[in-house]
């Protein structure tokens, strides 16, 4: 089997703050094959956007990243700044949220594409720029008659389509889409999700789709990784994870999502932890309805859902319940804990 498009192992990303280092991403591993859409879902502060930026080398100053990150077998973290800059856009691209602010209001659509293409291919002719751009714009549903239009002449959904086309015109093998539909209405959101799905298939692009919306994951993704407090707690085939969630956090998150079939309100007690000083053991244990005494002491390793070693194609979980044999017998009892006061509630 050929190398996956993205192979990330034991990625850690810490931010420096006056109060101490924030462990935004803490030992996260996953890989994405070409043509595959991996959904990264989690609440705000779970580290999902940080991963997306880390993969592209777009972390802010004051952050550190380590671990192993390979793009088609090539070690990205060993490259110097200049080499990574060259890869960005051409091999690895990003679709940002809020398309309304990402396009330059003084530049025509044509100028946006010219700039993008010329940065990476300085020699390319105007006719070639137009041809390549119109090809992508057409696929994405922007009529060629709008080639010379300005961003304000487009609606929000059209602008997001232009952003996607701008990312794709260089034919990158890997694209990060960070909340690509949050600013959009539900009908437009459905159009954009469909475009992303079709593109992954059509251009054989590997896509990391970051969102807090479980519905979008279920709609668009082949596989899903659920993040909580800087860690991937569960990763696997989207259908499998949604129909048979293993980790208590995944289960609780699915239960607390309000859908058209919701008939009772459910919420997770407590609030996400402070990542400067995260809880001992499993990060979720203070809020977990199934926590055992052992969960507060030891951090669960990632195992496939039957308790064996993670392998390609398995759903993997970081929870002691799936590896009960490794839990000392006297530590299997329910965790004793103080009441979560309302004050600690989110």
């Amino acid at each position, binding site marked *: 089997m050929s190398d996956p498009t993205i192979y990330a192992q034991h990625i850690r990303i810490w931010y420096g703050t006056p109060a101490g280092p924030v462990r935004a991403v803490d030992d996260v591993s996953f890989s994405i094959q070409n043509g595959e859409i991996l959904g990264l879902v989690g609440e705000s502060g779970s580290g999902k956007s940080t991963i997306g930026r880390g993969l592209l080398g777009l972390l802010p100053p004051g952050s550190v990243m380590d671990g192993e990150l390979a793009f088609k077998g090539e070690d990205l973290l060993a490259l110097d700044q200049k080499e990574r800059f060259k890869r960005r856009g051409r091999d690895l691209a990003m679709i940002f949220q809020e398309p309304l602010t990402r396009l330059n209001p003084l530049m025509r659509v044509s100028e946006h594409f010219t700039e993008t293409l010329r940065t990476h291919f300085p020699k390319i002719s105007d006719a070639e720029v137009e041809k390549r751009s119109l090809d992508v714009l057409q696929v994405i*549903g922007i009529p060629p*008659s709008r080639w010379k239009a300005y961003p304000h002449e487009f609606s929000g*959904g059209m602008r997001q389509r232009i952003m996607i086309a701008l990312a794709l015109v260089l034919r990158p093998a890997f694209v990060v889409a960070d909340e690509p539909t949050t600013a959009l209405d539900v009908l437009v959101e459905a159009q954009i*999700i469909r475009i992303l799905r079709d593109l992954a298939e059509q251009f054989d692009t590997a896509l990391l789709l970051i969102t807090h919306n479980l519905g979008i994951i279920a*709609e668009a993704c082949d596989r899903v990784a659920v993040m909580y407090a800087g860690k991937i707690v569960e990763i696997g085939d989207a259908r499998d994870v949604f*129909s048979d969630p293993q980790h208590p956090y995944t289960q609780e998150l699915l239960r607390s999502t309000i*859908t058209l079939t919701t008939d009772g309100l459910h919420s997770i007690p407590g*609030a996400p932890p402070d990542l400067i000083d995260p809880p001992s053991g499993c990060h979720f244990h203070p809020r977990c309805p199934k926590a055992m005494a052992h969960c507060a002491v030891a951090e669960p390793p990632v195992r496939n859902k039957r308790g064996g070693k993670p392998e390609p194609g398995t759903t993997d979980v970081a929870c002691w319940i799936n590896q009960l044999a490794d839990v000392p017998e006297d530590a299997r009892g329910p965790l004793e804990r103080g009441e979560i006061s*309302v*004050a600690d509630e989110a």
Partner: protein
Amino acid sequence: MPTKPDIPIALDVQDLQVYFKLRGSGLSRLLGKEGGTVKAVDHVSLRLRRGEVLGLVGESGSGKTTLGRAILGLVPATGGAIEHTSGGESVDISKLRGRALREHRTKVQMIFQDPHAALNPAMTIATQVGHPLVIHQKLRGAELRERVVAALESVGLAPAEQFMGKYPSDLSGGQKQRAVIARSIILNPDVLVADEPVSMLDMSVRAKILQLMLDLKHKLGLTYVYITHDLATAKFFCDRVAIMYLGKVVEIGPTDEIFANPRHPYTQALLKAIPDVDPAKQVPRDLPRGEIPDAARPPRGCSFHPRCPLARAECGWEPRDLKALVEEHWTRVPVDEYEHEHAVVGGLRELNTDAKTVLVQPTRGGTVAEIFAMFTKIRDENPDEPLWSGVTRIEQTPDGVAFDFAEPAEIALHPAGSSEVACVRVNAQ
């Protein structure tokens, strides 16, 4: 509509209009031309009984937030009335100005969408939650403190002492929204307008805030106007739902009825478009195309007709729809074909109108016959396209190709089942 006639009406919005004047360009102002008008709320009538939760649901640009703000008098009404009845007295909020309006706002309060922006970062929680009491009732000292403690504890920020000295930046998103709610109920209002109160919050927190709002409603006898784009929370939270599109209510009825029997094509589309957490349920591919149109130049007839999968001849077809159809055709043809057709018809500027009749003229290089052939081809690609049913004449004239469009039918809310719907298709049944 009157489901429980014995419960008094708290809020009666009658034929409300909120229009915003556009400035237009400098030249057109010099020439004395009007800049145009955005009809943000266009002849809307609603009734809320005491203790009821009414959902205003729609996409951005539908006018739901403007309507909510008009209920508080935060934007002036252009026409119509907003009658608020409290303690046996009725007042038309739309006619109040200045001090009278400010005083009235003690009874109608708002919960804002973004708790991070709705709180003053330089004020402690106690100061800003108590601020309305200082402004309206000149309270201070122990009495003020007592009321603030009570308000904080009633929204779950307990023990209140722990929060009073804190600043918004010390609180989580959910805690901030609790503080915002505490501030809005501290004057004992009877109507609360909640503008997307949970859309900025994480999934696991949304349920907590909605539960809190339900608890407060029962405890304090509140009436809610719940503004949202999220049909799933509306279904759970509301007694009745009004679906808005481009300033108008297109469907209104009891929540159960709207969700079990959505009648307006827009409501049906919204319901189908929600991505479900069940991967086995895929969003269908036949969703409405395009986006909500420019409110300054709304479509003729039914505002939804350009996107409506079920549109018919009398829905208000017009030249702009023809332009959208040609542009959509251009996203499908090879580039050289587009270039040829574009050379024949040009930018189609003449179609930027809602006139009943339009003439598409050839460019210098094109002929009338070529234009006619292009439109014939587009028509043959998809003869079932509803637009063509609304075209009553296509004719080659010496100057170009002439199009006539059908006269639109009158669109108004009519009863259908226990709902009311504004759609010619539904009303004809």
